[in-house]
């Protein structure tokens, strides 16, 4: 059984059909890429999985359990983490605080214990800090630890967002255009990291990406969306030579009518 399944999902925003009858299955331990032209509905799909949008139709199943109606703050607890296309970091906090927030859902103490900073709270803080430092080492963020996000270069900010998602200890990570805005070197680093994350932490990764170099490098399975529907599915090579995909990205040759 697939780890994450999306069955016949549709989402409308008034007259705009963002997603129409989309079905997708992601196998455990894979890197699954989601590509398509701008406006195809890829981020909308992620937002539905994250619980930020509620789909009008269809179901999302994670580990066999229906999570279509689960509120957004409960999704991370089930094991799904995500990053955002335009970075949603806590800009006035330090890198460390941002990543430490990834450990928030693992806390067990209530507000009264926290007010008094009881030993239990202290222990959990230290344990969380240990985990976070491991991630910081993994992603080489040591020198940025105490800096405020707003002052950091874009590439580092992306890294922090990745780190925060990792700190949640997820089973699935949804990465929304992680290579956007990165230069070729950084994009290559990203490929290594995605591979490392998959192997070291056994995390299944779903990737929305425009950079075909990254897609070819890391993903095993690719789904192509266009105007809210799935137009192709398969390995990176299969998909790249698929006529419907070429048409979606490059358009028709002159003189030929588009075929359904």
């Amino acid at each position, binding site marked *: 059984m697939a780890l994450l399944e999306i069955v016949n999902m549709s989402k409308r925003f008034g007259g705009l059909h963002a997603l129409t009858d989309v079905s997708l299955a992601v196998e455990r331990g894979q890197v699954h890429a989601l590509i398509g032209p701008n406006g195809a509905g890829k981020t909308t799909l992620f937002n539905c999985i994250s619980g930020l949008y509620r789909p009008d139709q269809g179901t999302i199943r994670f580990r066999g359990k229906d999570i279509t109606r689960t509120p957004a703050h409960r999704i*991370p607890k089930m094991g799904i983490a995500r990053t955002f296309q335009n970075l949603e970091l806590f800009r006035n906090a330090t890198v460390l605080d941002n990543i430490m927030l990834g450990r928030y859902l693992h806390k067990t103490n209530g507000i009264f214990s926290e*007010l008094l*900073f009881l030993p239990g709270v202290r222990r959990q803080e230290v344990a969380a800090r240990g985990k976070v430092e491991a991630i910081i080492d993994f992603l080489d963020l040591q020198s940025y630890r105490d800096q405020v996000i707003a002052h950091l270069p874009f590439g580092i900010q992306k890294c922090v967002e990745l780190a925060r998602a990792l700190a949640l200890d997820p089973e699935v990570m949804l990465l929304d255009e992680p290579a956007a805005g990165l230069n070729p070197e950084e994009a290559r680093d990203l490929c290594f990291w995605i591979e490392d994350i998959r192997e070291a932490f056994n995390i299944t990764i779903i990737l929305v990406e425009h950079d075909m170099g990254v897609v070819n490098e890391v993903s095993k399975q690719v789904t192509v969306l266009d105007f809210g529907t799935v137009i192709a599915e398969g390995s990176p090579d299969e998909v790249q030579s698929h006529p419907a995909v070429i048409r979606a990205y490059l358009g028709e040759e002159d003189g030929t009518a588009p075929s359904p």
Partner: protein
Amino acid sequence: MKFKLKRTYEEDLKIFQYGSELARAGVGVLFLTVLPLFAGNYWIYNLTLAGIYSIAALGLNLLAGFTGLISLGHAAFFAVGAYTVGYMTSTLHISFWLALPAAGAAAAVVGFIVGLPALRLTGIYLAIATLCFAFIIEQVILEFPEITGGVNGLILQRPSLGSWQLNSDASYYFLVLLMVMLFVWLTKNITRTPFGRALVALRDSEVAARTTGVFPAKVKSQVFALSAFYTGIAGGLFAPLVNFVSLDNFTIMLSINLIAMIIVGGLGSIQGSIYGAVFISLLTEFIRMGKDILPAFISQQVGFQGAVYGLVIMLFILFEPSGIYGRYRKIKYFCEVFPLYRKDTFRRERKFQKAQRTR
């Protein structure tokens, strides 16, 4: 530049990172403790009042500075705390030491209720909604004279510790000083726990906070209740200080004063709340003193106090929007990197985008 080599994560969690910080705090507390020996009763009384307001300011800063939820109606929580203590001590004859926590709890309950509509409101909508709540609570206070004494208010005695009544200004001053230190410690604790981080997360990006597992409704109601708790305790300490509770003390001017305190002091900073509270409390005193010095035709004007007060607030926001604490940090940084300070280090870049961010 100062450097501290830390070897364990526990060290990073300490409240005072450097020995010098601890020393400075110690000297400050020592100074405040021996102050009654040589300062007159007038100043001790005013400092006590400033201390009470700083607890309320801390509470408001938790809500507005850390979490970004604007409240224009904090005077209501202050009033609830004051009236609870007033009613319990003078009418029900319950000990002050039980009434005070009850005051905090009562205010927390009211804060929780006020926070409920706030879960869906942001920015100016939230501000006006809290203002409305404040007016409504004010009216409710008037409508139950059996408890609140209505327009006449309640008269109280100072509390006693066993057989010793805290009648002197100095004795009550120490009580408030202890309470301020307690609340500063509690707030410092919050900043190093997940809850504190969640507050800042909600302020900066509620969407991202949700995807990291923060349940906004729960955290927001908790912080509302907590903020109200602080303010309620402050109100509960206020009532016996002035020996009298009446609605005149809890008008919208108090809410405005509290906001002025945290803005002038520094939004989102613990030290800032205290500096701001002291500054604004003493400002009214200084203006009064200024009245005696200035030539008669200026000072005798009827609106003099209000005009100066309004002007001071406006000037602060124009020239030092990060408040007293902000200015202190800038000066400290200047001294630390001297003589390599770059002139435009703190220049703010010109902002075109809309100031208000959606959630």
